[in-house]
C-alpha cells in the first residue's frame, strides 16, 4: 500500500522552499535593540517578531522563504503564470498589512496559505477560469514512442487539471493543499477555517468527484 506521501514524492517541488543566495543575504538588525543579525538564520516566528518590532527587512526574508509555495498554490488555481504571479503578489501584500496582527497560533506557512486560498477563491469566483490549455503538448514530436507517451501523459494531465478546476471550491482547496502543498489535515483545517473531520470528508469527496469526472472525460 502506497501512502499519500509516496504519491506526493513525484511532484517536482516540495516544502523546502528557496533560501536566499549568498550575496543577497540581508544582515540587519532583527529588532531595534538587538545587535546586527543575519535575518535568514531566524525561524519564521523570529522573523515575524522582528517585523512586528518594526524591521521591514524581515518581511523580505519571509517573501523569499515562502514565495515559491504561495506562487504554486495560486498557479494551481488559475493555471497561467501572469495571473498566478499577480495573485501571489496580492497574497504577500495582504500578509504585509496583516502581519502585525499575526498571533502565531498557526504556522506562518499555514497563515499564508489561508490568505492564498481566500485570494484565489475570490478571484475564481469573480472570473471563471480560462479553458484548459489543450495545446500544452502541441509541440511534442509524435513520431517516436516516447513522444507519443509524453503526448498521452500530457493530455491526461490536462484532463486531470481540468477536472480539478471543476471541483467545488472547498474540495478544490482541500485537494490542492493536501496533494500539492503537502499540508497535514490539521494545517488544512486551520487554513480553511474548518475542522479536521470536514477536511477529510472534503478530501474524500474531492477524490470521488475527480474519479467520476475522469471516467466520463
Amino acid at each position, binding site marked *: 500500500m502506497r501512502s499519500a506521501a509516496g504519491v506526493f514524492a*513525484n511532484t517536482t517541488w516540495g516544502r523546502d522552499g528557496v533560501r536566499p543566495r549568498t550575496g543577497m543575504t540581508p544582515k540587519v538588525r532583527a529588532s531595534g535593540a538587538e545587535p546586527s543579525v543575519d535575518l535568514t538564520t531566524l525561524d519564521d516566528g523570529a522573523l515575524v517578531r522582528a*517585523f*512586528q518590532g518594526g524591521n521591514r527587512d524581515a518581511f523580505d526574508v519571509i*517573501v523569499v522563504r515562502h514565495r515559491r509555495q504561495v506562487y504554486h498554490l495560486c498557479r494551481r488555481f488559475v493555471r497561467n503564470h501572469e495571473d498566478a504571479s499577480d495573485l501571489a*503578489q496580492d497574497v504577500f*501584500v495582504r500578509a504585509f498589512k496583516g502581519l502585525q496582527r499575526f498571533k502565531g497560533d498557526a504556522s506562518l506557512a499555514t497563515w499564508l496559505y489561508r490568505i492564498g486560498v481566500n485570494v484565489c477563491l475570490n478571484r475564481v469566483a469573480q472570473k471563471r477560469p480560462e479553458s484548459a490549455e489543450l495545446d500544452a503538448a502541441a509541440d511534442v514530436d509524435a513520431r517516436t514512442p516516447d513522444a507519443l507517451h509524453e503526448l498521452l501523459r500530457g493530455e491526461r494531465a490536462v484532463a486531470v487539471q481540468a477536472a480539478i478546476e471543476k471541483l467545488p471550491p472547498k474540495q478544490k482547496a482541500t485537494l490542492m493543499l493536501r496533494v500539492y502543498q503537502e499540508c497535514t489535515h490539521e494545517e488544512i483545517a486551520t487554513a480553511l477555517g474548518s475542522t479536521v473531520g470536514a477536511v477529510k470528508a472534503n478530501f474524500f469527496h474531492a477524490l470521488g468527484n475527480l*474519479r467520476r469526472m475522469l471516467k466520463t472525460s
Partner: protein
Amino acid sequence: MTKHLSPEEFVDALDGAPPASAAHLAECAECREEFVSLQVTLGEAGGVEADEPSPLFWDHFSARVKQATADESVGTSWSWGRFAWKPAVALMAAAGALAIGFYMRPAVEPGASLAGRVQPATELASAAVPAFEDDGSWSLVTALASELDWNELSQAAAPSDGTADAMIEELTSEQRETLARLLQKEIGDL
C-alpha cells in the same frame, strides 16, 4: 461485513492505513475496490506537475512585492509595557514635588490662629520688596511682561508632557537618590 469504512477512515487509510482499517480492507472487497480506486485517482492528481517559472522570476517577484508594499508602514505592535513607566515617573515626580513642598513649608505653631499668621498687605509689600534703584532692567522686564497675554503666559509656563521625565533626566545621581528617599518616605507615610 456490513459496516464499511467511513470517508474519514478511507482518507486515513490513504495516509497509511491504521490497523483497524487495514484489517477491514483485507476482508471487504467492496471497500478494497473503493480504496484502490481512490488511490489511483490520488496518484493521477499528484502526477500533475506544476510548471516551474524561470529562475529569474523569483527575484523579480520579490522586487514586485517590495515595491507594492513600499508605501505601507510597518507599524509596531503597541504594548503597555513600553510606555507604562512614563506615567509612573510623572506620578513619582509629582509626589516628590509635593514632598519637597511639604518639608519646606513654614513652621506653624499648633493652635496659632489664621489671623495671627496673616500679615497686613502693606506690611508684606514693604517687607517683601526692598527698596532698590532701577538700572533699567526691571523697567524692561515689566514692559515686556505687560505686553504678554495671560493665556500665552500660562501656556508657556505650564509643564508640558514629558517635563517631569526631562527633569528627572537632568538630576544628578545624588539628587535622584534624595528624591527616591523622599518619595519612599512619603509613600511609606501614606
